[in-house]
């Protein structure tokens, strides 16, 4: 793991703490498994608030939209969930990424 990767992980978790402290409702998404050539490594984070603002990356832009939508639900229900994406499917290709992998993302509320 390079220093840059570690720094990036640290930043998102720090953002999650800062947002949470300032009273925003926050969910944290984490890449927990990848198959094939996934765009972001296992352990990558995305932090999302109830309004759909986010920081970080779990797929280099490819499925962030879907993760954010699910995360807003997770914030409402308080129930963690696991999402799976085939990054190479047609939807992904249309938004410009066809890296050919699959990723599993764990989304949990910070409470």
């Amino acid at each position, binding site marked *: *793991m*390079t*220093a840059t990767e*570690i*720094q990036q*992980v*640290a930043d998102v*978790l*720090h953002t*999650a*703490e800062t947002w*949470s402290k300032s009273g925003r409702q926050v969910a*944290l998404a*984490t890449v*927990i*498994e990848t198959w094939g050539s996934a765009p972001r490594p*296992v*352990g990558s984070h995305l932090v999302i608030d109830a309004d759909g603002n986010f920081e970080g990356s779990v797929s280099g832009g490819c499925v962030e939209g879907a993760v954010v939508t699910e995360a807003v639900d997770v914030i409402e229900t308080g129930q*963690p969930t*696991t999402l799976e994406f085939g990054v190479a499917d047609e939807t992904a290709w249309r938004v410009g990424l066809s890296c050919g992998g699959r990723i*599993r993302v*764990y989304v*949990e*509320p*910070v*409470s």
Partner: protein
Amino acid sequence: MDFSLLELLNRERAARRAAILVTRLDDSSQRLVRKEDGYASDPLAEELEKRFRSGKSGTIETEEGNVFLTVSVPAPRLVIIGAVHITQALVPMAEIAGLDVTVIDPRTAFATEDRFPSSSLKADWPEEVLNETPLDAYTAVAAVTHDPKIDDFPLIEALKTGCFYVGALGSRKTHAKRLERFEAAGVDPALFDRIDAPIGLDIGAASPEEIAVAVLGSIITALRKAPELSP
């Protein structure tokens, strides 16, 4: 994630301490394993050991179902004592290998920006620099000045702090004298085996550049392979 757990994890990161967040994916329960607390009795001890070493997060199968390990280890650092010829070769190699490099040398004729354009260079005594930025277990120290006045203090500090690698340039004879000084200074002789001396892997390195390769090889070995049990 519990907010207090997130705070704790971030605190460990900021302090350059290793920790692993253990998440059971079936019931979402979480706990934080701090490396310095010890984890030998943990049911996942073997896996945790591997992860602390590799720094890689990942999902594992356990008797309690799938568990995700969010691994947080500080970026490995390399502190080189001595802005010498070997160092000029070692700095770029170590940076390519992913280490954060600091070069310390109080001799301003050696420690010039011309000689070390990209690295973090401290033209000051190791005593001063290490007082501001202390060593830790995720730091390697390589002392290459040949001058006991400069090398001895950071080497002793590295041994006391448990730096993952401690290397010292010099022949066997020079090193024997060094150990005599360390013993006189009250350093526990049990720690002496931790010093890589003569420095670097035994690859017959001759030029400064080749010695740099040998030193980097030793550092990576120390970082990635389980330490030998002390006798």
